[in-house]
């Protein structure tokens, strides 16, 4: 898909030097201005029908995630069931978008959710990305072979910060190839920048363009293992990037903030930002996701409040 649309950029990605020139030629991001804009959008007041709609949409956008060393088949099975029926007391509650786990647990989740909910796996030596390319690709192929619908890869932040952009580019291209299944289809690729380590908004914008030129399907802020993880201004810069990229190439790329989004109120702020920065084409689980584990229960609690008029305690909602 992107190869033809991106043909115009083949010169850009021909060498490290041309790639650097291009990425550094992108308009800068003024930190104060970007943060002020994000804060301004955060003051939108979303209530009644708009809030009910936003809560359901946010639930449908959640990638229910567990990425711990202590994860077990039992733990991820519980999560998979929750993904299908987030609120067992209310059948009108939609399923989440995906369950995100380590590659070795993909099969356990798949057995439960089937094709009703996507299964995402982290790969490429998540979360550090510090391994040889062969290992990263093997990690990816393994997860795809286990049945993962989506692959969340991490970029080599060391290479990026050292200015070896072409290396990062080629790693994304190679990982995308590793996502191809024997039947020719491919697992959706999400590229994680770990924006907390990239630090500057200029870097976030450059990483976004780099990943989009390399053919990613999604760009994602963080692994959830580094603070700060997703923030509104970082996501704002990424939303501007996907919007500009579609205008330039016609190719639409998804965005996934991950880590640190815990409340329904925060999630709605993100949705407002999606709406007003990228546009309502992105208000869909195909194009926007929340990487979060604790967010879901707050969304459910707010949803119940909307329908019953009362808040219920945490015991009325399932543990993951």
């Amino acid at each position: 898909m992107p190869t033809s649309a991106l043909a115009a950029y083949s010169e850009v990605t021909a060498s490290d030097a041309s790639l650097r020139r291009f990425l550094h030629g992108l308009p800068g991001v003024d930190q104060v201005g970007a943060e002020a804009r994000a804060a301004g959008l955060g003051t939108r007041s979303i209530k009644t029908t708009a809030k009910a709609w936003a809560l359901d949409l946010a639930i449908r956008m959640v990638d229910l995630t567990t990425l711990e060393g202590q994860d077990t088949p039992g733990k991820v099975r519980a999560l998979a069931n929750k993904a299908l029926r987030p609120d067992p007391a209310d059948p009108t509650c939609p399923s989440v978008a995906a369950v995100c786990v380590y590659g070795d647990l993909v099969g356990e989740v798949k057995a439960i959710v089937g094709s009703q909910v996507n299964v995402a796996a982290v790969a490429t030596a998540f979360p550090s990305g510090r391994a040889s390319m062969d290992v990263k690709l093997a990690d990816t192929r393994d997860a795809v072979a286990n049945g993962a619908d989506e692959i969340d890869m991490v970029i080599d932040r060391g290479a990026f910060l050292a200015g070896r952009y072409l290396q990062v580019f080629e790693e994304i291209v190679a990982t995308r190839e590793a996502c191809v299944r024997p039947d020719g289809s491919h697992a959706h690729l999400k590229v994680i920048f770990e924006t907390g380590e990239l630090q500057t908004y200029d870097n976030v914008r450059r990483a976004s363009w780099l990943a989009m030129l390399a053919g990613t399907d999604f760009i994602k802020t963080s692994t959830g293992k580094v603070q700060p993880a997703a923030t509104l201004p970082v996501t704002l810069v990424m939303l501007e990037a996907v919007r500009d990229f579609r205008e330039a190439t016609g190719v639409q790329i998804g965005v996934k903030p991950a880590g640190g989004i815990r409340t329904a109120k925060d999630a709605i702020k993100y949705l407002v930002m999606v709406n007003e920065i990228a546009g309502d084409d992105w208000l869909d689980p195909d194009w926007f996701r929340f990487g979060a584990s604790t967010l879901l229960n707050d969304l459910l609690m707010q949803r119940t409040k909307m329908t019953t008029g009362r808040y219920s305690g945490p015991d009325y909602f399932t543990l993951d």
Partner: protein
Amino acid sequence: MAFEYAPAPESRSIVDIRPSYGLFIDGEFVDGRGSSFKTVNPATEETLAEIAEASDADVDLAVRAARRAFRGWSRMSGKERAKYLFRIARIIQERARELAVLESIDNGKPIKESRDVDVPVVAAHFFYYAGWADKLDHAGLGPNPQPLGVAGQVIPWNFPLLMLAWKVAPALACGNTVVLKPAETTPLTALLFAEICQQADLPPGVVNIVTGAGSTGQAVVSHPDVDKVAFTGSTAVGKAIARAIAGTDKLATLELGGKAANIVFDDAPIDQAVEGIVGGIFFNQGHVCCAGSRLLVQESVTDEVLGRLKRRMGTLRVGDPLDKNTDIGAINSREQLERIRELSDIGEAEGAERWAPACELPSSGFWFPPTIFTGVTQAHRIARDEVFGPVLSVLTFRTPAEAIEKANNTPYGLSAGVWTEKGSRILHMASQLRAGVVWANTFNKFDPASPFGGYKESGYGREGGRQGLAAYLKEADA
């Protein structure tokens, strides 16, 4: 899938609007001796209250009260005066919501701005000048500087409460007393401020508020016992005031019109520049004397900037000022709406290309959509006259020198904006632009510590900051 935001109106029950208001003289609300007029909600055209029109005799009473109060207030130690100012600042914070709602009802500005900008900055001004009250010896204006006496202050309708704070806070901190006339279309928050003065136990006569139109203002500035005139408003009225006080020993500061250039270079942070353009001209419906009403954009990025600007303008929400999601509220008065329409029509007739996003305007009240004119040149009136509305003229330039030339080619000189990633260029531009304020990579930011004022027909004198004290003090032996 469209995200329709449900209406989120701020409750107006928090504020009581009385059916009629008198004048605030010598610490009391008194009936005016003149006639009265109505103040209306510009978003609905509903009459809000009957306001007394102060006659010359009323103004005379107010000035006498201020003169009597001056003796005690000016001799009070700075530390004591500061206590009153701090108290006023705190009450403003406590009653912030009430003030914000009333300001939006009377003025038409979105609650988002009155709540998040006007009222917090008002409180900040009182806090800031309260801090100066006992440090006047260290303001760089000589040892033991003295207050001037009675200040006659006339303020506009675009930021009713904020302009009051800009005028009243430094005057009081320096030991002056004031007679203030708010604009006839927006008197309500000044009258609520009078209540706050009572609540703060401010000595009677230190602050007097006389409402009315032009003739009341004239009576204030030309009263023989007024020592200092402070005016913010149109250049035409400013000139009239300057003529009226010529030959007297009255001192004056005038903050008048503007036609600011907002200059976008090709290396600017484009998305933030677009935000700055939007904030520069559509903030407060463009009713801002320092509004960035002339966009000067480098030719190499004109298409990109305009494309993004138009897309951004499509997301602006115009409507009920009390809705928390409203970005652009109502035009303050029918007269102002007529003026905006007239100048826009002239812009079109002169060949500039007019564009506004599709937006539905309420059926009653005074409304004008956010509008840009492209293909504007220096020869167009729309590039020269102050529109004082949500109307942006877009001009282009090729080199920094041309940008400076065009930016300075105006009778005004209140503010300017520069958008570039290059620090050295920011400094160069700031030193070349003939404007009182030059914002870099931002626009329309107000801080009590930062002086504000203009060149040429934008007036003289400075408000805000340490410089703002100079307008209310004289040397001890002078």
